[in-house]
């Protein structure tokens, strides 16, 4: 006979999540385990991009979920449970990026508008190393710009969802995205092309 309480692969749907969180607020560890397992993969994918170190990533996941455990009772249903949890992870990720940025600050070399130099842009867009270049270029962005890009392009979230997670107005997200993309484009050219060629 199998245990009715041990279902490692059962995933709660988003409709079940508020009830699950309510049970977590009452100290139900089994509900907390289900929530933890359900969110682990998503948080791991997002946070590994930010930290690149598995043990740091796991530490942030557990810090995030500890906040969920302790403050589940504060969740009032104003947003989706996923937005609330991602918001907690976002603030942890922001702190990590801010700490890392101080440790390895690199100036961005500002390049001309890529639309004005098609050869340069073609080299960039068609480059086989695009994946590596983007990774290196993202490291050069401010934490706020980097996170908006990660949430939009990597997590596929809408402008409104990102605003809820980041706890800021939609207009701020749009502005961060606009300037984030500009800075990324500059950084991309700086990392992808030798200095002499970049401006040609």
């Amino acid at each position, binding site marked *: *006979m*199998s*245990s009715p*309480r*041990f279902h*490692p692969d059962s995933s709660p749907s988003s409709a079940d999540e508020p009830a699950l969180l309510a049970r977590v*607020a009452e*100290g139900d*560890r089994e509900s907390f*385990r289900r929530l*933890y*397992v359900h969110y*682990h*993969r998503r948080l*791991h994918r997002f946070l*590994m*991009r930010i930290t690149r170190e*598995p043990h740091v990533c*796991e530490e942030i*996941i*557990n810090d995030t*979920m*500890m906040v969920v*455990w*302790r*403050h589940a*009772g*504060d*969740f*009032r249903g104003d947003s989706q449970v996923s937005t609330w949890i991602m918001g907690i992870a976002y603030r942890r990720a922001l702190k990590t990026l801010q700490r890392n940025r101080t440790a390895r600050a690199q100036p961005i070399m500002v390049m001309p508008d*890529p*639309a004005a130099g*098609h050869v340069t*842009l073609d080299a*960039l*867009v068609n480059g086989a190393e*695009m*994946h590596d*270049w*983007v*990774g290196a270029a*993202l490291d050069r962005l401010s934490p706020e710009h980097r996170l908006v*890009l*990660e949430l*939009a*392009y*990597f997590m*596929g*979230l*809408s*402008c409104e*969802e990102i605003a809820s997670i980041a706890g800021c107005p939609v207009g701020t997200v*749009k502005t961060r*995205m*606009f300037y984030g*993309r500009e800075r*990324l*484009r500059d950084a*991309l050219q700086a990392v992808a092309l030798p200095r002499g060629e970049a401006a040609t």
Partner: protein
Amino acid sequence: MTRSVRTRECDAIGELIAWYVNGTLDPAGCARVEAHTSACERCRITLAMETRVAEAMRAPADNVEHSPHAGWQKMLARLDAEEEAGVPRPVRRAAARRKFNWPVAMGIAVAVQAAAIVVLAIALVQGRQQAEAPRYRTLSNVDATLAARGSLVRIAFDATVDERTVRALAQRVEGRVLAGPSPENVYTFVFDDADSAAQIEDRVRALRREPHVLLVEPVVLGPADASG
């Protein structure tokens, strides 16, 4: 028609492109981006660039699936440590602010206390007879667990762990295998009924630190058949 001069519409499209690329832009916005980029080379290049950037960001760095179980075991250890240190769990503040009413709360508290006294009195009188009754069931060997005397702990192992390893582990934590394995490789250990609840909790924590253990759950904490 190809335009190379930056227009106001180019600026407006520039704000929409990211959301078009990640598929969250509304249909009217999508139509606007498509209409403009079909006519404007500058914005078409920008769109191609953004699409490549988004693709590069979405490409997996590796295909390794990371199991949550090791992290969960660490989380359980943190929860246990907090409980041991007596860290109080925060109450449901939002609900408390809205609903708290002193006279009603006092009335409920008095009623609950009175009910608890009555229940305790009945339990004391009937305790001896009830103590002999089985109070638990477990995974794969219902009869064995019903007959067991002692504290039961259920342990889920990963698929790599065989029965001999489990029996050795049970011996190491001064327990024995009562039931298992279930199809999910779950075992039930029983500990001597002379062991205190604190000793059992120590063993639960020790089991949770084992590398191939996915989950440890006490079924009955403290002597299961205490005859009080």
